[in-house]
């Protein structure tokens, strides 16, 4: 893992300003730390050795106050800047990621499902907070303060300079050494931890199941056992990381003690002044502390950096885009299509042809690839062997070379599991065709046999994740209505009668016949062969 990924600069514009300001503030605070040491050591010497009184030291005292005031402002700025920029950079990163994903440019979301991407765009990016607001600012400080302060110390006392030069590299070296040594063991432990921590969620999700089989009472002991096991495994991981923190801390404090003792001895010998001695004593911890702190933030930030590098990989990936715009469609046909899934047998779609003036039935048992064919037609599944040809005003075009959004404009679709955004029923239906009046919407709802009186607030009823006021069947009817409304040439219906128990078969047939009469391609994926009284164009899983 790199502490600072150059891709961050590319994808987050505000990161540049932040990095610049952060470096500047770190340098300023290094200078102030030195000024403070100079002032305090002078003050102590002048009181103790020169026996001066307070009034003759008033300039020094005002200087010290000024330095602390400035340090206060700088600390304020670092904190404010870090918090603000962290928020900004996280939002920017989320925005570019979502632009890519929602624009249909990230093939990962179709291949791996939405869960990994949405986890990355939410918790993953949130984990970057400690990286942006803690680790990065500390990294600047660690890169500048020890160097500047070390030079300042060496300029007063070469011996202390040598001790610092010899001991400072021990901290990162030791850190890396410990990391290497424990890395793979820790990695394995984290995996065990992930399994154990998933247990509680698994158990809560399965509570109704345990309840109906009378097993819910027996879980207490299990839960306790797993909880304690989780605790002990976590402690093993933590012991390692605390121990490495301890090692670094011991190196740092012993180095400071070494410097202090050597100063003391040379003071006795008379080769060093008290002022220099105090100056070095105040500054010495400032050399070690920032480096040790970076190491401790590094662990907290690692999770976020991991997420960031995965996000960058998605952002860097490019999918091939076709350029042929398509408008009028006469026919769609395909050769045998083969899709390979990991851990599963290949899905084979036999060659087929879709024409107007009929119901294009696609039938086959579950898992035989009906949904795969639809996913290919919709442009979500892009890795397949075989070709899809679209005949448009006498010419045949390969689907791979067709501009995808112009193609999708021609598609309307009822998916198997409906997913609405947070919107009212009216807004959902208007996604199909935004020029319709309420009365026209009601006509379609009647067609799919959805009674507005059954919806709590009629067309204003809210849909989406938050309000689960409607049943699956009602939602599918709304989705079917939306699919019918979209003025597209091709209508893809995936199991229109599943979960919709009370659309009379006649009702659906009638709606579909209407669409065919209006000149649309109608593709129907179903297990009810008898439904339309027509022969299927494709039978899946026949071999």
């Amino acid at each position, binding site marked *: 893992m790199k502490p600072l990924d150059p891709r961050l600069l590319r994808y987050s514009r505000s990161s540049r300003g932040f990095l610049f300001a952060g470096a500047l503030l770190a340098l300023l605070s290094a200078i102030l730390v030195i000024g403070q040491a100079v002032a*305090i050591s002078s003050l102590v010497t002048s009181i*103790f050795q020169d026996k001066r*009184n*307070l009034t003759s*030291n008033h300039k020094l005292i005002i200087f*010290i106050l000024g*330095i602390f005031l400035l340090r*206060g402002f700088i*600390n*304020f700025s670092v904190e*404010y800047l870090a*918090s603000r920029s*962290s*928020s900004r950079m996280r*939002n920017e990163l*989320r*925005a570019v990621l979502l632009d890519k994903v*929602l624009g*249909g440019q990230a093939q990962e979301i179709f291949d791996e499902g*939405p*869960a990994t991407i*949405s986890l990355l765009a*939410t918790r993953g990016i949130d984990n970057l907070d400690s990286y942006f607001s803690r680790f990065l600012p500390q990294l600047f400080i660690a890169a500048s303060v020890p160097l500047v302060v070390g030079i300042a110390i060496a300029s007063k006392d070469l011996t202390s300079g040598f001790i610092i030069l010899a001991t400072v590299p021990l901290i990162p070296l030791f850190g890396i050494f410990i990391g290497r040594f424990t890395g793979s063991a820790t990695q394995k432990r984290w995996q065990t931890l992930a399994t154990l921590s998933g247990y*509680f969620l*698994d*158990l*809560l*999700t399965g*509570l*109704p*199941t*345990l*309840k*109906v089989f*009378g097993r819910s009472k027996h*879980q207490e002991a299990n839960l306790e056992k797993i*909880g304690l096991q989780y*605790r002990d495994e976590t*402690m093993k991981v*933590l012991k390692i990381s*605390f121990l490495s923190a*301890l090692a670094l*801390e*011991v190196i740092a*404090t*012993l180095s400071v*003690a070494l410097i202090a003792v050597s100063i*003391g001895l040379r*003071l006795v010998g008379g080769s060093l002044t008290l002022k220099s001695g105090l100056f070095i*004593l105040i500054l010495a911890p400032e050399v070690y502390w920032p480096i040790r702190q970076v190491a401790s933030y590094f662990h907290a930030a690692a999770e976020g950096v991991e997420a960031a590098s995965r996000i960058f990989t998605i952002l860097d990936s490019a999918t091939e885009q076709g350029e042929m715009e398509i408008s009028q469609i006469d026919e769609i046909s395909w050769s045998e299509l083969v899709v390979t899934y990991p851990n599963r047998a290949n899905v084979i779609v036999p060659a087929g042809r879709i024409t107007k003036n009929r119901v294009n039935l696609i039938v086959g048992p*579950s898992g035989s690839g009906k949904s795969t064919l639809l996913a290919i037609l*919709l442009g979500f599944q892009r890795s397949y062997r075989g070709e899809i040809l679209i005949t448009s005003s006498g010419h045949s075009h390969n689907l791979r070379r067709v501009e995808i959004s112009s193609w*999708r404009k021609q598609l309307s679709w009822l998916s198997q599991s409906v*997913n609405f*955004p947070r919107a009212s029923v009216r807004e959902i239906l208007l*996604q199909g065709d935004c020029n319709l009046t309420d009365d026209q919407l009601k006509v379609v709802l009647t067609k799919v046999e959805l009674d507005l009186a059954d919806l709590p607030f009629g067309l204003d009823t809210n849909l989406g994740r*938050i309000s*689960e006021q409607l049943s699956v069947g009602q939602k599918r*009817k709304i989705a079917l209505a939306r699919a019918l409304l979209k003025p597209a040439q091709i209508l893809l219906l995936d199991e229109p009668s*599943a979960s919709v128990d009370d659309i009379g078969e006649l009702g659906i047939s009638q709606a579909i016949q209407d669409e065919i009469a209006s000149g649309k391609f109608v593709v129907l994926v179903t297990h009810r062969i008898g439904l339309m009284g027509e022969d299927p164009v494709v039978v899946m899983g026949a071999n």
Partner: protein
Amino acid sequence: MRNLRRYLRTQTNLMLFSGLIGGLSSAMAVGLLATSAWLISMASMRPPILVLEVAIVAVRFFGLSRGALRYVSRLIEHKAALTTISNLRIGIYLSLERKVSKYFSLISRGGLLRRLVSDTETAQDLWLRLANPWIGAIVSGVCGIGIVDFLLPKLALILGGILAMAIFFVPVLALRWESTQQEIEESVFDSVVQACDSIQESLIFGYQENVREEIDEAQSALRRIDIRSGLSTGFAVFVHTISVGASVVIAAAFATKAFQSGEIAGVNVAVLILLPLVIFDGLTGLPAAFSRAGNIFASAKSIDGLLVVDSQELTSAYECFPDSDNYQIIFDKTVPILVNTNLEPFSGIADLGSILVLRGKSGSGKSSIVHALLGFLEYEGSITINGIEASHISSEERIARFSVLLQQDHLFATSIRENMKIANPLASDDEIMDAFKIVELFDLVTEVGLDTHIGAYGHNFSGGERQRIKLARALLHPSQILILDEPFEFLDYAQVTRIASRINELTANKTLIVVSHLEFALN
């Protein structure tokens, strides 16, 4: 937060102890600086080396024990926190297990279960992030002031006052009470998850723009909060720095006077002026920690709400479940009671040889009827089991006598065998395989083996396969009464016909209630 406190309190002693140790570890830094300052001042007066020996040893001791104490304190506090979490999980599980209706109202809304899990983990931060560092700051501060008090009591009084104010104000200034932060965060997350889930439909129906707008809006609200939080944290850090500066100057003034009046030895001047630099060190991490306090409190509060103990359970005396091998269940104008929804009354009879099929419009509450029969929901009207009103029998006993397939049924992230044994712990492998024969999974399971891990949420299997595993599991449970809620979802028409006829055969002398629109399959 009375209920949560019960759980946190069990580890109080350990937590306080670790806070104390942590504070002592910071105090070692105070000792280190004080001794070094004394050492250097003393050395400048060129005494015999022997005088310095003690200080040299002390410097090394402080240096080493600082790290060691810190290590010990972190180990103790994390162990205590993890134990607390483990107990909290059990508490939450038990309270949900007792209150199934509360559970159902919880899971009906999106990712709340997942959030509950993360809230449980956040609750430990009350100790780890807020209380303990604060206790540590007090302990190390008190130690530092103690040294000052030993040397110059007058100064100790003033520095003590500044420290007390800083220890109180620095966290309070950074503190964000805004629980809205978490709400807005959740709403951003919700929108993002929603957008990702509905990506395919949004591409076809072209509403990504709206989704993006919604997310951008929530994000900018989040940014405003972050900026405010940055301002207050920054201000707290500013106050911290200024307190140190003021203390250094005040210490210098007092030390000068005391030194000139002969009250203190000259070697202690450096000690007194340098001590303020470290006395306040314990406060360093507090602003950042307390800026997240609003979230921690919000999590703690939502956990607390779940842990409420219901005192009026098991008040009414229950009747026994009738023993028979011929059950008749009669629904008479049954209306399950749901918040915000009025359901139509339902009547029907399930009998030997006459299957009760619940069909009807989607959203008409078929599953709620099942839940009412199981005791997950209260109901009006009547449900009788061989003449006894269902609500007069405890929910536990009712459930024990049924074989149930729920729509919420879950496949656990373990082996196929373990999942099946939940329904019948005594079932042999042969019995399990017999159940798989009914649902046409025999070949698949034979091929992959009963030890196959089912994957999180059953992800190693397709939707139809998962549904059939659940159905087989329900059939494995020995019982005279079967209740199957949508058993044929995701299955093919032909397969449904075959499986349904096998179920018919199997349940010839049992009572069967089925929620399904494929009633024809069950004649």
